[in-house]
């Protein structure tokens, strides 16, 4: 997906761009409101991530201006934790807000929730063999059978399906789910992999165990 990040803190912005790139998203960064306007005139974005305090104005003004002529969903990134601030954001037309510092998994969860409400994005489906997964809806189509995945199963499957043929260690998979549950262990990964195998039963992609190294998704 393609996001526009409006954030004046360079370090934070660079980390967000890098981190979201790991998940296969393209992020354009604008450090100020006028740069953001320029980006919006040139490209269609699936979503805007908007900081509130910016050098050339208040993100809230941008939000109300933006709402008058565009429908691109907006998630506000705010360091202000006051409920009144958040309520104000939602009143101005933000789709959601997230308080800094945020967990990327939570940000992604919120992005998906917003996009789901807004009726999807351009590329929320990934197909591998005869399996198609809808990352927003959390549904899986295996051959002719429809399966609804739980959130953590979906996130784990996303890693596999984005990296077919690649060996993924339990630790790498744990990273993926770490934010979802601080207490998750490597044993839990085995449980989830077993569940995913059942879900994928009958389809062409399979999750193989690579002894001593981890798991790998292959297509028969």
């Amino acid at each position: 997906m393609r996001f526009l990040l409006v954030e004046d803190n360079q370090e934070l912005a660079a980390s967000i761009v890098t981190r979201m790139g790991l998940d296969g998203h393209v992020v354009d960064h604008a450090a100020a409101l006028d740069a953001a306007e320029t980006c919006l005139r040139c490209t269609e974005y699936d979503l805007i991530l908007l900081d509130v305090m910016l050098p050339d104005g208040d993100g809230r003004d941008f939000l109300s201006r933006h709402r008058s002529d565009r429908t691109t969903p907006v998630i506000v990134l705010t360091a202000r934790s006051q409920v009144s601030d958040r309520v104000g954001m939602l009143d101005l037309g933000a789709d959601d807000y997230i308080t800094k510092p945020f967990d990327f998994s939570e940000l992604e969860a919120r992005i998906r929730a917003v996009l789901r409400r807004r009726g999807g994005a351009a590329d929320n489906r990934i197909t591998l063999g005869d399996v198609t997964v809808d990352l927003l809806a959390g549904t899986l189509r295996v051959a002719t059978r429809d399966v609804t995945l739980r959130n953590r199963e979906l996130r784990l499957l996303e890693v596999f399906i984005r990296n077919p043929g690649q060996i993924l260690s339990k630790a790498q998979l744990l990273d993926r789910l770490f934010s979802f549950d601080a207490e998750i262990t490597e044993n839990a990964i085995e449980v989830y992999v077993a569940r995913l195998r059942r879900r994928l039963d009958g389809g062409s992609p399979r999750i193989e165990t690579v002894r001593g190294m981890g798991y790998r998704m292959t297509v028969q």
Partner: protein
Amino acid sequence: MTESVRTRGSISRRLTLQLAAIAALLALLSWGMIRGFSQQAAEQTQDNILAASVTAIAEELRSEAGQIRLEIPYAAFSMLGAINEERVFYRIVSDGETLTGYDDLPVVQDGEISAGVTFETLTYRGDSVRMAMVGRTLFASERAVPVLVAVAQTRNAVDAISARISRAAALVSVAFFVLAAGLSFWAARVSLRPLTAMAQTVARRGPSDLSPFETTAPHEIAPLLAALNRFMDRLSASLSRSEDFIAEAAHRVRTPLATVRTQAEIALHAVTRDENKEIMRRVIRAVDESSRSAGQLLDHAMVSFRTDNLTRNDVDLVDLVTEVVNGLRPTAEMKDIRILTELSPLRVQGDAILLQNALRNVLDNAIKYSPADSRVTITLRQAGAGAEIRICDQGRGVNGADTATLTERFRRGENVGNVVGSGLGLTIAHEVARAHGGRLDLAPARKGTGTCVTLSLPFS
């Protein structure tokens, strides 16, 4: 606010009492004066008549052929009869002998008589009498013979008149006092009215209304009003400074934390060795912990500030719960926790922002301590004269710790494991409930493991 202020005395009562005391003194004084004047006037009248009478008799004294002769004029007694039915006594003494009259009427002895009329009050035959005396010197038997004429009259009428006047004066004085006391009460009320009006204006204000008072005031109260306005001004400035400070502090603390967290997460994906991954996870947990603590500290500061100045509005609890649930649903979904709600349409009078904050903290706790693939149920229902929001999880429970202990600042349960938290969440919820006259209770769930937190709020 009266209950928290120690009052001593009342200006109105003091003023009324002082004015009434002055009125009583004046009434007493006027009664005494009227009584004195009337007595004096009555006595003066009697004295004048007695003088006229005694003089009229003295004028009739003649000496004929060496004898003192006297024909008492009728008028001399008739004028005395003018005053009621007083008894009249007289005695005319010549050379120490009584010519006529009452022998025992005690008169001044010879040699001391004067030509002018003299008066004396004495007791005669059991009555108080007033006596006028006048002396004359006549020539009889070729020598000067002193003659003393004395006329006395009882004083009953004079006493009666002065008693009557005194009674009337007393009545008038009492009436005057009652009227004056009433007027003092009214005057006290009227002069204190601007003060009362000001007190009402202050009391009517909402707790967050810190605008200056625009009312006009008498110049005695004007300095007080000016001082109050200056105080309001300072208070308002200091409150908005502290609100700005809270927001600014949040921004300053959270932005760098966000950078650290993001880079730590990137590093977590980049490193391959298990022990390095574990270190990065620990870094992320620590950052999460500090950011949660910072958030809850700021929440707590905001809650303390708002509960001190609680503003009550009509709050739709269904909307409120729904909004909080929607806000936290993505977090819950990350752990595949389902949030089930069962909401009855209820409204309370309260501060929506505080209630949201309390509910968010309780729900956040419930999600945090719940295992994956579990349920959190929220029930909103009426309980007695209030609303009850119950949040039940299927988490590890609170192991019998009581509400009082868990709602202490920075207190966390003993079995929190490595779940991130600062221990302020329940404190915040507890303080919000208390500010609304409600309560927060923790109890083990009835079925299976888990905890139920109940936030009870009275309707008004």
